[in-house]
């Protein structure tokens, strides 16, 4: 079985490869192909991945290519984790948004919209190549904004595509860790949208343990729930996706973003420390040492994740250190295993609603608990959302529909309507200059708009 990572030259790819190698036997994995347009990054990450594969016993082959058709030939599963425009594009998004007094965040609000302008056409082009070369392959989209990109894929008729984000299963992971249980022992009920989801139940052996968890101060303080005041989480009575911070603490988030370096600038600084060290010729000759340097970097990166949300916060535990089945690659590999006919799983994914959440359209891509087995992926019935969550989900979904339509038609007017629909932008006097600046800043990626 061949697994392709599009964006395989990215700095998180070794984590993915590491996870995939541990599951190689269970998934029948024989080849991991890293595909990227950046040849120099491919060599670097390819060498690290090859060292990981060697340590894992050498049963899985690592290949690299800059050509999508070559990558997709014979592929069963394709994971897309690209960042069109790179880290500089991300920083431009953050800074343009902040200059208009709105949130400058990679996936949420105006900057997320700017990223979608670039991500959607890029991923649709890959999907088209995949449909031509390996029509039966599954496309797992990790590319942000994952919900929007997956909506565009489904609207364009790519039925074997699904959006994956590890934060969808945040509650399940946290409760499993809290009770020292395997993740599969926790049955969560997730609903909402990508980076805008809620977990309303978390059952262990048929009993809902979520209320106990939310009542426990230590539980809240030891997880990403710490970005919210405990009384806020308890008022909702649900696990809140950490990205809801940007809505529920909107003014604080904008002020924090304007104060220091943006997240993109932080990561660029980390990368600028790491890359020259990895690139030194002798490190390519010594991949073992390069891997040590890489994992030290990854811990630093994870430690600073969402740190800017609270000045005094303890770093969130590094995701790289979590046990098998968690984090960046865990969901994708669980999914592969289940689709191949292994143990069926229940997990939060971004798929068309198909009636699961009442009040949203069947074609709306939502983040929802799904059951996955060799028949495919089926969203589980949720029913009606409570008003407090429903109003926010509906208005952001309205923004998402308009955004996908605006990108499909390359229409500036629709883009403005989309941003006005977004609760964190809301006004024409902000939306119009934002759209114009984003289109100008990313002219090389977005093509001609009118």
């Amino acid at each position: 079985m061949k697994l392709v990572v599009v964006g395989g030259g990215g700095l998180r790819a070794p984590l993915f490869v590491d996870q995939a190698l541990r599951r190689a036997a269970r998934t029948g994995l024989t080849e991991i192909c890293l595909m990227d347009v950046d040849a120099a990054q491919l060599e670097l990450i390819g060498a690290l991945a090859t060292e990981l594969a060697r340590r894992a016993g050498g049963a899985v082959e690592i290949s690299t290519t800059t050509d999508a058709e070559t990558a997709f030939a014979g592929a069963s599963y394709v994971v897309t984790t690209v960042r069109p425009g790179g880290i500089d594009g991300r920083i431009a998004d953050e800074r343009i948004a902040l200059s208009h007094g709105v949130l400058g965040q990679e996936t949420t609000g105006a900057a997320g919209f700017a990223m979608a302008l670039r991500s959607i056409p890029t991923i649709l082009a890959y999907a088209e190549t995949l449909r031509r070369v390996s029509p039966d392959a599954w496309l797992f989209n990790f590319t942000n904004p994952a919900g929007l990109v997956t909506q565009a894929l489904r609207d364009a008729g790519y039925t074997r595509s699904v959006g994956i984000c590890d934060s969808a299963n945040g509650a399940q992971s946290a409760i499993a860790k809290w009770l020292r249980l395997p993740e599969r022992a926790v049955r969560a009920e997730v609903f909402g949208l990508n980076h805008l989801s809620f977990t309303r139940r978390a059952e262990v052996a048929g009993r809902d343990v979520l209320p106990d968890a939310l009542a426990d101060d230590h539980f809240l303080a030891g997880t990403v729930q710490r970005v919210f005041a405990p009384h806020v989480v308890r008022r909702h009575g649900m696990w809140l996706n950490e990205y809801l911070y940007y809505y529920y603490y909107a003014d604080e988030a904008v002020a924090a973003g304007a104060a220091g370096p943006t997240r993109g600038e932080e990561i660029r600084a980390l990368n600028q420390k790491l890359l020259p060290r990895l690139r030194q010729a002798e490190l390519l000759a010594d991949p073992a040492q390069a891997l040590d340097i890489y994992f030290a970097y990854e811990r630093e990166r994870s430690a600073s994740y969402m740190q800017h949300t609270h000045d005094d916060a303890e770093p969130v535990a590094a995701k790289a250190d979590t046990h098998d089945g968690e984090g960046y690659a865990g969901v994708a590999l669980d999914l592969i295993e289940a689709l191949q006919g292994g143990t069926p799983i229940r997990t939060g994914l971004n798929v068309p609603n198909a009636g699961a959440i009442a009040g949203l359209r069947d074609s709306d891509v939502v983040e929802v608990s799904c059951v996955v087995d060799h028949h495919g992926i089926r969203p589980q019935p949720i029913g009606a959302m409570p008003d407090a969550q429903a109003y926010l989900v509906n208005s952001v979904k309205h923004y998402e529909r308009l955004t996908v339509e605006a990108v499909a038609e390359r229409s500036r007017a629709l883009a403005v309507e989309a941003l006005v629909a977004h609760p964190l932008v809301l006004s024409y006097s902000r939306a119009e200059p934002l759209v114009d600046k984003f289109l100008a800043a990313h002219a090389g990626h977005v093509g001609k708009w009118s």
Partner: protein
Amino acid sequence: MRSCDVLLTGEYYCDLIFADLPGPPRLGAELVARDLAVLPGGTYNIALALTRLGLDTHWAADFGSDLFSGLVLEQAARDGLSPMLFNRLDTPLRRVTSVFSSGGDRGFLTYGDGAIVPPPAGTLARVRPTWLLQTFRFEPEWLAFMREARAGGAKLFADCRGGDFTLETPGVREFLSLLDVFSPNEDEAMALTGMQHPKKAAAQLSELVPIVAIKRGAAGALVADCGRWIKVAAPQVPVKDTTGAGDTFNGGFLYGLCSGRCTEEAAELGVLAGSLSVTDYGALAAPTLSALKKFAGEQGRGKMFLETAS
């Protein structure tokens, strides 16, 4: 004391190409060709490919007092090859290949004077090459020359050639183990290893050489680099003549390595250069650096190369 990018070893040939014959040559018949081309051959094509890409290249070769040596030397002067290591003997040194082509197939008649020996003592010290592009010769004196080059800090690159040898032939394994890069085409790789599949051949060769680049024509290239498999697709181009494509691939690949690029990118440049070369006869289409840039841009390939090539 100077240091150059590439020192090239290998003999010259003069190719007489009789094109479009009405049938294969046979005893007792005269066949009239529709076209004739007289072109330098042998190691000349790779010398030209490297020189055109702007690499500081010196080819150590013997020439004689004969007509064919003279023709090739004249063309070398026109093509701007460095004559610094050309050794002109006062005896004939005729190396000629007659190529006859008919109905899309080719045959050869070859004659060569003299033994093919390593460059004179002191050559390595004189040019101190970053890379030695070594002809596929594994006699003891050549292996000694290669060891001397390695000891002097040069990296070694070799292509394969057709011939009646395998990994079990004395000298071949040692020859390969002295290399940093080996770039056979897929038929050569399979013949050398006795394997039926290019990938299996590459896997076996990569136990001896850190980087093995298998040239696969229209299928691009498959490169094994210390356990990692690099796959490069070839752009689709109209094919006129595949002579010299392998040499031009080597040129692009070496240019990439000499300019400090990674293996992925060097392989990409090799494939782009090789693809360009099949669009014209012989080495006529071996690209200059600017032609390679233009082609990469048209094909939407070699992103880093386009951003960083001076």
